């Protein structure tokens, strides 16, 4: 398990990618996004929920996601985020970069295979 630090650049890019990936199936609000990331990573990636929001706003400012007010499953006012076309493209860029990095790291760790 490791805590995602706010100011670490690699992990920040990673958080961006995870958010974009979470939004790929459809719109979600911040709380859902946090829950989904934690759940999917089997609670390995524990994000500080607060750090999610600056990241969301950053993504919105870059035009990768858009936001709108909606009502949550238990009737609460919540701000939803949805992937834009640019965001979808960015997601594939980030994913392929991530995969390259993972492959490279794996090769370093297990050179013989």
């Amino acid at each position, binding site marked *: 398990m490791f805590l995602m630090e706010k100011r670490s650049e690699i992990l920040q890019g990673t958080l961006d990618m995870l958010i974009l990936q979470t939004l790929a199936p459809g719109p979600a*609000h*911040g*709380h859902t996004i*946090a829950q989904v990331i934690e759940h999917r990573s089997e609670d390995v990636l524990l994000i*500080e*929920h*607060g*750090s999610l*929001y*600056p990241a969301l*706003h*950053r993504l919105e*400012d870059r035009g990768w996601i858009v936001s709108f007010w909606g009502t*949550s499953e*238990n009737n*609460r*006012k*919540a*701000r939803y985020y949805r992937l834009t076309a640019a965001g979808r493209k960015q997601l594939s860029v980030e994913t392929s970069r991530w995969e390259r990095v993972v492959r490279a790291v794996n090769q370093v760790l297990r050179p013989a295979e």
Partner: protein
Amino acid sequence: MSWKRYRQRSSEIESHLAMETADNIARGMTPGDAADAARRKFGNPTLIREEIYRMNTASWLESILQDLRHGARMMVTNPGFTLIAVLSLALGIGANTAIFQLLNAVRLRSLPVRAPHELAEVKIVGGNHGMGVNNGLYAELTRPIWEEIRRDHPAFSGVFAWNQQGMALGEGKDFVDTSGIVVSGDFFRVLGVDPWRGRLIAPEDEHTCPGSVAVLSYGLWQSRLGGREIDANTKLFIEGRYRQIVGVTPPSFQGLAVGDRFDIALPACMPKELYTNSFEINVMGRLKPGWTVASASAQLAGQSAGIMAATEITGYDSTSVKKYRQFLLGAYPAAHGVSNLRNTYDSSLRLLLAITGLVLLIACANLANLMLARASTREREIAVRLALGAARGRVMRQLLVESALLAAVGAALGVGLAEVLSRALVISLANGGDNVVLSTGMDWRVLLFAAGVAAVTCVVFGMAPSFRASGADPVTAMRSGGRGMTAGRERFSFQRAMVVTQISVSLVLLAGALLFVRSFYNLMNFNPGIREEGLTVAFIGFEKSNIAKDHMEEFKRELKEDVRSIPGVTNAAITTHVPLIGGSWGHQITIGKMDDGAAFTWASPEYFETMGIPLLSGRGFNQADTAMAQRVAVVNQTFVRHFLNGADPIGQTLRTHPEPGYPSTVYQIVGVMADSKYQNVRDETPSFVIAPITQFPDHGPVTAMMIRSTLPAAVTVDSVKRRIAERHPEISMYAGSFQERIRSGMLRERLLAMLSGFFGLLAALLGMLGLYGVISYIVMQRRNEIGIRVALGANRGQVVGMVMRQAGLLLVIGVAIGAVLSLAAGRAAESLLFGLKPNDALTLATAAGLLAAIGGVASFLPARRASKLDPMAALRCD
């Protein structure tokens, strides 16, 4: 800024926490635990909000807005500081702008004509020394000289002549006095003034004498004709005849005389005879390309001998003629027009500008001290911010914005104040009935000046303390914050220097103010040798009465007797000249071997008694002194000293030099009168001769009358006017209180006394505020030390004495420097003072005493506060 967006984004956080809390409760936690867990998981919401805020407001402009908001909040939370700072600034800037506007209007503003810098005025170098008849305010040359210049003017592409005179507009009951100019044909063309309506005066108008056309100023066109279009039937009754109005000048053009306006322009016409001794016109020209005022002057000087020979004065003795032939013409810059106001007020306005400059300096020193005192109380705040990672530049910028905000508010208030002040100044310049027309409206130059002063004040004085405050090492600042027994040395010396500056400059201003106030007092209470209270002066014109020249004298006597019979009037005298209201009348006389000028007046026998001038020996005039009898004269004491070296003058004779209309005449001296002031109170008494009015050689249809009455001036003026109008409705007259006439001539002194007094007090007040502030500050800084002293047994008197010694030292140094400065500055004011010297010891001592006294009070208050310190509280605090 997306303030709304920021709100939205941060409210999102609330909703997130609520959801998480709800989830936690669903997992079985108690509501309190659930909220805590949610917050733990979220991290620090404030930090997150701040991060979001920074993301949203990263632009430079937005952080400036943030600084501004902060600055405004600082201003509101410290109303005392804000009030003093803003008021200091507003007064400094406002007073400066007002005086500058006036100076600008009177002196700096160029005429609204084409290429004004090419204009030059042609004058006799050094003036004509009172030769001949001088007619009109700006009259410099005679018409024959003008004709010579018009014929040949190599340095100028065009020349014109003009003069200024009152013009009667309308007839009968509708008659109004307007101010007019008479211009040569090329006047408007050379000036490059284009018509607003119709056409302006052209060379062909000049030949048809008497003229039949007139041009109106925009103002008169509006007021008299309601701005109606003019046509061939537009006629007005001007100066005794109907004249066709051919055109209107543009609104910006108000003539060439600054402070005067013109209503009507008439073309000059060629009279039957041109007088070589009548200096009645002003000549100007436009320099040809490549010519300067200096080269034109040299050219004119070369031309002068020829011109003077061709226009030689006649009827004068050989010395005068010789003097005339030596006159040199010269060219003088005329871009700013001519101005009587300028001549009268220039030096006073400059002095006032210097005074207001010093007031601004004091205000700035005050501001600097205030800023400094505040910066030191905020030093800890700034240190904490620096320690928390605030960028040094960021803190500096915030301090800059704060002082800029203060300066902006002060400047805005100052500009408003300037408007009010300069309006008041123009009103007070327009003494009596004289109409002063000055456009002191805000122009870019004035605005720039005010803004510049504000900006410099703000940056230099506002930032000086900020540099150090933000340069301070956070750790030291935090450790010493509030205690400051060792850290304040350097700052103290800066503040002390500021206070010493304030005190010394205050002393200069206070001493100057006292000088001008005393000078004005002297002038008001000076005994001119004439009992001026209870006197009414009247100028009576009876051109329309058609009195034959032989009966003129008789007619005047009857008028006088008429006036004398009015109830309340105790005496009345007719005279050719009224003293003390400016103006002079002189003749060159010879007595024995002495040959010099003397003032001359012809008056009726009642003159001495009416004016209250005592006869010291011999006799006055009586019925026997007729036009046919031996010419007699009464002379004053100065005359006796100057011409006769103090010898008994009775029985001696004096001879006047011939002038046109005034042939050489021998007068026998029959009496001696006490000295009295002549042209005005300020000047030395000249040698003065009074002869009987019956023996006046040049009776015209005008006379001046002095009336002594026991009734108030207004009542007397009214009854005199009514009495004369009953008998002679055709007579025009002016009448008014003699004392008021004299006092209106003291306007310059009154203005200086009033304004310098105001600024002097202001300076003292500001200086004292500064002293009070610094002493309070020092006391606050030293309260631990004072507390220890009190705890160790120092009594109140000792504490007060200790603080007062510190203040006293500042006062003494300030006063000493101020005294030296005052003595140096006094010389600039010498020519404006009456009846005292600029290095007047009493004035300086009074100013120093006054300053020391209020300085004592200003430092005693904080000293007393220090002595009342509870030692325990002082030691425990901080």
